[in-house]
């Protein structure tokens, strides 16, 4: 049995509230001991973590791996590599593949491919409706039996309110959340950017904040009525935050996420017409960005999720209005979040909690914490290491990032998943 000893790092584990310099011993697939000092033995591979942070392997519940069907954008292997390079050991992949993950067979295919690749834990999110059409429920039980941990039509909203209501009811049987991409398609129309100052200046068609908020309100009303479990994808507006706060105050079973790009960027960046700034929901105005930051800090927004949406050049190297929505986010997420921490916009503990134990709890995953007997999913971060975002060096096939050229501080140096070193010295170990 292999053993890895992580020596002298600062363990930050929001699940236990621990923040102290300790040694951590991994034996097999589990953390076997955490102590102020553990004696080095010959059988142990020692990682010197002095001056480094030791965090639970990060958890991302919103990733598009594109396989099956769109392997030119990403596949399970390239997406897994991107994940561990970004410090993620557990990711949940959305159902908008081709074919759509709306049956147990597709779910099982994804689970088996993920095991073959074997770099990180991948949990599929099944579709709410057959073919993401919003008309009939997909075979949720079959997908859950094969490993799905939630359902979502992400990429599209569950536009049919009756179907959303039934999904919230039906999933109670399985104890999984219904995850909704909140967008009123009639209000967003063929909009491509946030409706605000910069849509007025550029003439690019705006997507109003109300397009999201109307659906957030609807979903909260339905979750209250059904007592189902609702998780809201990528919250991006101040109005959504208010509605979510009201819903939570009323005891609705409700959680939500925000992406690093909605925390870090305003819509001002669209003036370059760089298609890498095109994402749905769109990058919003400053008042919205400040509102989602505050909501995350206060816990009104529960977690950070990347909405990693890799695309190929044929999707992005085109006219702005024609370009695909989406940002490749796995390899920049931690660096961007730490930049916000360094700037005082977020607290470190809350940021790490929102990328580890909090998402694991919402999706019912055994992940996101470091404890004796717990899974050996650990990431070692050099908090002082400065680096420049260079998409050409991404493991992801998606080079589409508005953070290209950004100077970030804080980088993953080692990722351990299931007791195995999967990333070190800037390279994925396969």
């Amino acid at each position: 049995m292999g053993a890895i000893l992580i020596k002298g790092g600062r363990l930050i584990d929001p699940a236990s509230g621990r923040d102290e310099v300790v040694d951590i011993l991994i034996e097999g697939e589990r953390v076997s001991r955490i102590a102020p000092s553990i004696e080095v033995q010959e059988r142990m591979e020692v990682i010197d973590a002095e001056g480094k942070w030791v965090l639970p392997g990060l958890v991302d519940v919103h990733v598009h791996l594109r396989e099956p069907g769109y392997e030119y954008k990403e596949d399970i292997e390239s997406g897994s590599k991107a994940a561990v390079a970004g410090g993620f050991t557990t990711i949940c992949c959305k159902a908008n593949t081709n074919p759509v993950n709306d049956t147990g067979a597709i779910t099982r295919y994804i689970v088996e491919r993920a095991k073959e690749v074997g770099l990180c834990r991948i949990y599929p999110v099944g579709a709410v409706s057959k073919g993401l059409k919003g008309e009939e429920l997909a075979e949720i039980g079959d997908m859950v039996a094969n490993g799905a941990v939630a359902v979502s039509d992400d990429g599209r909203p569950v536009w049919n309110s009756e179907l959303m209501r039934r999904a919230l009811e039906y999933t109670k049987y399985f104890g999984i959340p219904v995850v909704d991409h909140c967008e009123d398609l009639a209000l967003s129309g063929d909009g491509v950017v946030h409706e605000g100052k910069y849509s007025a200046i550029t003439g690019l068609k705006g997507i109003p904040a109300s397009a999201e908020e109307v659906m957030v309100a609807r979903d909260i009303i339905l979750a209250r009525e059904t007592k189902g479990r609702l998780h809201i994808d990528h919250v991006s507006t101040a109005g959504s935050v208010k509605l979510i706060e009201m819903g939570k105050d009323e005891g609705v079973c409700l959680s939500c996420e925000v992406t690093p790009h909605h925390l870090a960027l305003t819509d001002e960046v669209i003036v370059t017409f760089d298609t890498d700034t095109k994402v749905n929901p769109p990058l919003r105005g400053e008042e919205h960005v400040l509102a989602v930051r505050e909501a995350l800090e206060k816990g009104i927004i529960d977690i950070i999720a990347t909405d990693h949406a890799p695309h190929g050049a044929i999707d992005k190297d085109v006219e702005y209005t024609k370009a695909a929505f989406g940002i490749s986010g796995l390899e920049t997420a931690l660096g961007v979040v730490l930049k916000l921490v360094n700037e005082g916009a977020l607290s470190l503990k809350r940021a790490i909690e929102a990328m580890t134990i909090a998402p694991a709890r919402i999706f019912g995953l055994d992940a996101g914490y470091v404890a004796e007997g717990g899974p050996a999913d650990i990431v070692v971060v050099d908090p002082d290491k400065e680096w420049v975002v260079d998409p050409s060096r991404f493991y992801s096939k998606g080079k589409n990032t508005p953070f290209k050229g950004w100077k970030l501080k804080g980088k993953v140096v080692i990722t351990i998943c299931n007791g195995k070193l999967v990333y070190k010295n800037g390279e994925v170990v396969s």
Partner: protein
Amino acid sequence: MLKKKHLLGIAELEREEIEAILESAASMKDILKRDIPKVPTLRGKTVANLFFEPSTRTRTSFEIAAKRLSADVVNFSSAGSSISKGETLKDTVRNIEAMIVDAVVVRHSSEGVPHYIASFSKASVINAGDGKHEHPTQALLDVFTIKEKKGYIEGLNIAIVGDITHSRVARSDILAIKKLGGNPIVVGPPTMLPLYVEALEVETAHCIDEVIPHVDVIIMLRIQKERMKSPLFPSIREYSRLFGLNRKKLEKAKKDVLIMHPGPVNWGVELSPDIMDFERNIILEQVTNGVAVRMAVLYLLIGP
């Protein structure tokens, strides 16, 4: 002279550059008045008109401008081209560039396309209208025409009336008028002013009758056909009554008010037919000046 290789929008131009273009356009207009209105300035240069959206006036204007300067002109329109066979915009532009052109004049329905082409193009890119964003040569010919008539722009009140939200002409006009010290006022129904109109840093009004007595110039915008059936206003009749211009409304105007329109006019919608022979309707002079301004732009960007 111009500081950049491309003309992407008025936003990128400094006042001095706009003034240089207007000055050059005045010389070009003198050339147009000659018996043989053609000079060899751009001989050997090639201008490609890339129009991905239908246009007669602007394309013809650029073509004549280039020919008056002795440049060779090739016209490309998307109908019947490889674009309709699924070729990407980038491939189309690169293929045309590979045939060695000095300037590409681009009209496209998507905002930012000239900026996108400029990011990989070796030729000078001239924006001939990108979606609802900018139409810089239209704004340049508008301010040229106003200056020609009034002698100056500084301090003039200039109303721009119509569908501001969907108008690239309005966006470019506002910028050009402001940079030259004029005072643009945008007028239109609330559904046709951007919800965040304050971003344009411009005076706004909803009622044309309140604005008419105070302005020196009225630029009427075209109501596009596809908007006529959208919920932006209830009917053409109501639009025309509330926001259109006619002789009766002009009774309250200043005696020397100028009426302009970027064309093509929908007579009976934004302009009443009784404006056709109104003595200070200078719409056709705008068209003539368009050629002079585009000659100036071509000369300043790819000239010797």
